[in-house]
């Protein structure tokens, strides 16, 4: 590990100013559960590490029926499932937040860090995409909003400019009878990286028989988490049932671009996309019809 300078920033502007001056010599740290590992393994060699955990904006966690959910970039996972209302309203996000690492990791790890680290296998990103989340980003020229589905550009890379930072993630307020679900497949029951992850979100009509909207996103089957618009769209107007679900699963499977690596083979991943899409849809629909 290379020696670095540690700067705890106290405002968004201070953090951005350091990024602006230092360019890729500086790196933000939130929970540090990705960054510290990368520093120790020499995979990143910043000269300056800027801690954002003392900045008020990135610690906010709020929910209301109009604005929906705001998750500050430095809010650790355990705070999400520690809130009864978030747990009840967004179980699909909780599925992901409570899978990342284990209890100890969740005390530190943030969804913001998970998103900015931009791993193709990151657990929260497919769930956030399925929930139509927006990344709120601050830079020298003010704030901009990037849909999470467009945020990642390749493994470890995002749309963020070198002097921009993620401030928060906005998740829309839920429509009636709408719920999400996230499932991943791992050979072990914990401490493992998704071989495939699938995030879904569905909305049902008032009779809870017909699907009125749906979104499906995949993890670990492409260079970035994949939003599969056609898969969700195929469900719209369909009565809930195995036929519609099978079809959506098949579309998702065709959209996957998996590779073979030490965590799984391309064939295995393609196969699992269909299995997990079906299971995740079953789970979200069960939640929405309850």
């Amino acid at each position, binding site marked *: *590990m*290379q020696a670095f300078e540690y700067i705890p920033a106290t405002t968004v502007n201070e953090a951005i100013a350091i990024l602006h001056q230092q360019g890729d010599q500086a790196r933000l740290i939130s929970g540090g559960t990705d960054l510290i590992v990368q520093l120790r393994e*020499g995979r990143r060699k910043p000269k300056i590490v800027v801690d954002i955990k003392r900045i008020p904006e990135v610690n906010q966690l709020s929910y209301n029926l109009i604005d929906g959910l705001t998750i500050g970039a430095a809010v650790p996972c355990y705070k999400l499932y520690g809130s009864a209302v978030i747990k009840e309203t967004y179980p699909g996000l909780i599925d992901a937040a409570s899978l990342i690492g284990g209890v100890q990791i969740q005390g530190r790890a943030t969804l913001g860090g998970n998103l900015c680290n931009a791993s193709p296998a990151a657990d929260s990103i497919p769930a956030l995409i399925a929930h139509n989340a927006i990344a709120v980003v601050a830079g020298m020229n003010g704030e901009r909003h990037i849909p999470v589905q467009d945020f990642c550009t390749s493994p470890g890379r995002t749309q963020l400019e070198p002097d921009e930072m993620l401030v928060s993630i906005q998740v829309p307020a839920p429509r009636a009878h709408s719920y999400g679900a996230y499932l991943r*497949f791992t050979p*072990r029951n914990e401490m*493992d990286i998704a071989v495939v992850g699938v995030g879904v979100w569905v909305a049902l009509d008032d009779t809870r028989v017909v699907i009125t909207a749906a979104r499906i996103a995949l993890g670990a089957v492409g260079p970035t988490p994949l939003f599969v618009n056609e898969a969700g769209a195929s469900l719209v107007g369909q009565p809930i049932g195995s036929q519609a679900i099978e079809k959506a699963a098949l579309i998702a499977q065709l959209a996957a671009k998996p590779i073979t690596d*030490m965590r799984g*083979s391309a*064939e*295995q991943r393609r196969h699992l996309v269909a299995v997990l899409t079906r299971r995740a849809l079953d789970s979200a629909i069960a939640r929405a019809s309850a």
Partner: protein
Amino acid sequence: MDSETLEQVASADISVENRHYKVIGSRPIRHDGPDKVTGRALFGADIRMNGLLYGKVLRSPHAHARIISIDVSRALALTGVKAVVTNADLPTLESVVSRVGEGSINWRYLSSNLLAGEKVLYHGHAIAAVSAVNPHVAEQAASLIDVEYEILSPVITVDQAMRPDASILLDELRTNELGARGSTPTNIASHDQFQRGDLDQGFSAASVIVEREFTTSTVHQGYIEPHNATAIWGTDGQITVWTSTQGGHDARRQIAEVLQLPVSRIKVIPMEIGGGFGGKIGIYLEPVAALLSLKSGNRPVQMTMSRFDVLAATGPTSGSVIRVKMGAAQDGQITAAQVSLAYAAGAYPGSPVGSAMSVILNPYRIANVQVDGYDVVTNTPRAAAYRAPGGTNAAFAAESVVDELANKLGIDPIDMRLINGIKEGDRRVDGPISRRVGYIETLERARSSPHYLSALSSPSSATCKVGRGVGSGWWGNWPGGTSSVSVVVNNDGTVNLIEGSTDIGGSRVAMAMMLAETLGIQASDIKPMVVDTDSVGYNDVTAGSRTTYSTGIAVHKAGLKIIHEMCERAAQLWNVDPGTIDYADGVLTSGTNHIGFKELARKIGDGDGNVVASVSISPNGEGVALATHIVDVEVDMETGKVQILRYTAIQDVGTAIHPAYVEGQLQGGVAQGIGWALNEEYVYDAQGHLLNGSLLDYRIPTALDLPMIETVLVEVPNTTHPFGVRGVGEVPIVPPAGAVANAIANATGLRMTILPMSPRHMLEAMWAQAK
């Protein structure tokens, strides 16, 4: 008590059946427990001293390459760097093979494994090491060493290595073909065989024959504590080494050989050890740290491995290809078995194929057999011992075939093993006549266990299937080697027990209990301690399930000597003949005189010469171990994931000295065996790069992957040990992979012939079957 009675007591103690013990079989708190749970126990990486330097190793990025040149000038120029060492700093050694631990070692190969000579033979092979004022500078300096390579094509699996056109790892290697030296360069280091009876006749007497080929992956012991060594090469030429090792004396001997120094120049201080499982017998860092110290102005140098170093350059045990053909008659009698095993030794000869050749069929009485074993070098780390070396993969193959035969004949799998199981007086497949062993007892206890009598639970979802499997295992143990102990009676009546067997599995408390039982006092009045190599006689490694057996005999003998001396002292006190003194339950009696052990110790005090005893022994007994395991699994037919629902390990443990630690050994062995069965494997790319050198991607089971492992201790005392001890630590890892495979077959009809039976391999097998 005179010496003649002493001898009688010693031999009388060998009749061990139905003995009633006071200490043995109880569960006292282990002496090292409080320090371990409060974090005070000192491990090798905890050593701090004035002027300490830190060493780092440069490792090969290639699996197979010739080293053209090494330029260390940029590293030496870095501020804070003290010294660099390479293979050129090690003495050139003859090619001589010696026994080390349970296996054997060629000193020249050991030396070039420490720091590569002409060639690097695996990804992660050490090339050079640097000492510097802190680990970061050392790491940076290592990256500044310039090495020029000629890259060669690698062979990773035994199949690749055995091809006639395979790239050759060791130019001088010739096959030792049944004792005769081959004439052409090869990667096959040896071919051994044992054979008995008439195979053709045996197979023609069979009404069913099953023949299968099994492939198993390279796996690692997965000890939590990485290798470490701290060394000072003193200005007086004396070397002191603090390290994590399974045997201080064996480490000393290896260091002495590779540095070509007399053992008296080296003192090894074995620290607490965070797991070894066979992987901490061979040395990796010790002489390198010593040489760095020598070249760094005699300052102490500490080296610790990263997890990648541990996985890429230490440990693993052999990947293998095993063929089994077995026939059985209608009544279930196995009539013939033909087996061939090819084991990957890694970079240098010495896979555990020899012990695998015994393990594979030894639970059974088979008249017509042939077993062939091949030791094959590959561009993977040099194979090290791993708990019942070679056994898990061997038993996976044989137990799968026995299960299939039973199925075909419609015989219950436990009955099948009862029909063929080895008993006292039977000839083992590997030659010797079997002594009293408790195999049949494990099978009977398995059959009557609550687990086997219970119904399978129903599947947790429509896509899942459940099944039950049984598997057995044999392990030879190593009831020998040298053990030395010293015992000192303190003037407060407590007793110091000084040993050199490093304590990996709770052996200190077991030794204390055996001494307490012998002396008739409490285990808590014994202070067991593992000391450095200068402070006790020679001790072979803690390995081969030998320590509680062999060191236990030494402890018992030392206890008898102490009793003898205490009787002498009491005789002086009472002015009676020592022969009139009776010693029982820690009380000495002669006529109306009687005195307790503690009181006598206080009376003796320190003024009249202490009561002390030293013993060094090299027993040559026997004490094979056998086990039968039952496992229930659930298989998700859509994902291929196997969940272990219930597991029971039944084992002949001889006498359980401290039952909690015996149960712990069984549970630990099963946990590791399930790792072999389900997910552990080295993943290499085509160039031979290790892709999963971290505990995130090398998937050892976590607590959530295992149920509570139930244990049944069957006690059939070993007649060659005063308390009936047999080694218990290794055999529990032998049956699991076979038992799990049989459970999967029972659930799904799918006969897995590959380890691990990971979700990916399961899906591939299902797809192949569907075709």
